[in-house]
């Protein structure tokens, strides 16, 4: 089942902690039930974004490896 994200952030190439900051801000602004797609290439963010998003109450739908050190994270806003 292909989920269409409500919003997409391309954070590839960005330095620490920009991917995490942008993700958190986007989630805060979105409405409940919407889906955020975040594209990253930073290994630490691959660990931290799902962890912190879950802790903030959101649902991490998937973390998919899309290339060498590249991931696509889908988060459903609580």
């Amino acid at each position, binding site marked *: 089942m292909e989920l269409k994200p409500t919003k997409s952030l391309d954070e590839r190439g960005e330095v620490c902690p920009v991917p995490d900051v942008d993700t958190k*801000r986007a989630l805060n602004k979105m409405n409940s039930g919407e889906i955020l797609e975040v594209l990253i290439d930073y290994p630490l963010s691959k660990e931290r974004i799902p962890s*912190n998003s879950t*802790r903030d109450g959101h649902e991490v739908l998937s973390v998919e490896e899309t290339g060498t050190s590249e991931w696509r994270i889908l988060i459903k806003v609580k």
Partner: protein
Amino acid sequence: MSIVYGLITGLVFGFVLQRGRVCFNSAFRDLRMMKDNFMFKVGLLAIAVQIIAFLAMAQFGLIQLNPKPLNLVGAIVGGYLFGLGMVLAGGCASGTTYRIAEGNTTSWLAGLVYGLFAWATSAGFLSPITKAVSGLSVKVASNSALYLGETTGPTLATVLNVSPWIAGLVFAGLIFAYLFGTKTTPRDTAAWGWVKTGLLIVPVAMFGFWSSTVSGRPYGLGITGGWSNLLSAVGTNTPINWEGAEILGIIIGAGITAAAYKEFKLRVPKNGKTFLYAVIGGALMGFGAVFAGGCNIGHFLTGIPQLALSSILASIFFVLGNWTMVRVLYGKM
């Protein structure tokens, strides 16, 4: 032989840094910004265990405790500027160094500028500033044979006039109480848990302090001196020493690890402004680290475990500088 020892230390350190994502910039910043204490606890665990490890090593004559002298201006000003710089650069001294090996172009730039400014501050055009305040450095009488020399940098042990073992055990005990008595931010997604990462740093620090001592440098892990050494080796043909070899080792070790786990990728930020920040950040880090008598690794992983007041003070200002720049760059979260 010192080059070999430095290289081995760096290789293993690079592996641990890369796999464990060890970055003290993240540790301090995430504590405040993300209410995430995971990496902070990694650092503190390493420190607590090392307090005891270094005391034992000194007791057995493998090393001698050698805390840096206390220089209030250096620790406060240097510490604060370094703290500001590491946020701009997107990584602390170790973070920037290991991420060079992951292909982060901003780290390449930040690392190079860091090295240049560290060199300039210790021996180049900025060194008059360092010399001007060096007269303010304070040493005290060593109160134990575990210390190197008749005088040494002040520590919690010397100022309270208790044996280093007593001061060390009490301080380590307090840290353990915090570590295991409070909630830790989960990060189940990480390859290594916080306890494993923190503990793995310890043998690297122990081998580092011992091998550096037998190589003529009676101190433990550090990053700044190594960068200065490498740049002066390139610029003025100075021989590479233990610390310079350590830096090369970190980059190679982290590089092999990153490649093995398929995490090497050329990463280029979309906004050119980020490169400007990396340059400014690197410069602040290079100057700040030399001025403060060490970067986050020297103070955190070598100085604080010896209960050095210089390291405790500098570290407090690293954190304050870090939090200031996080507020400036990222505002209220």
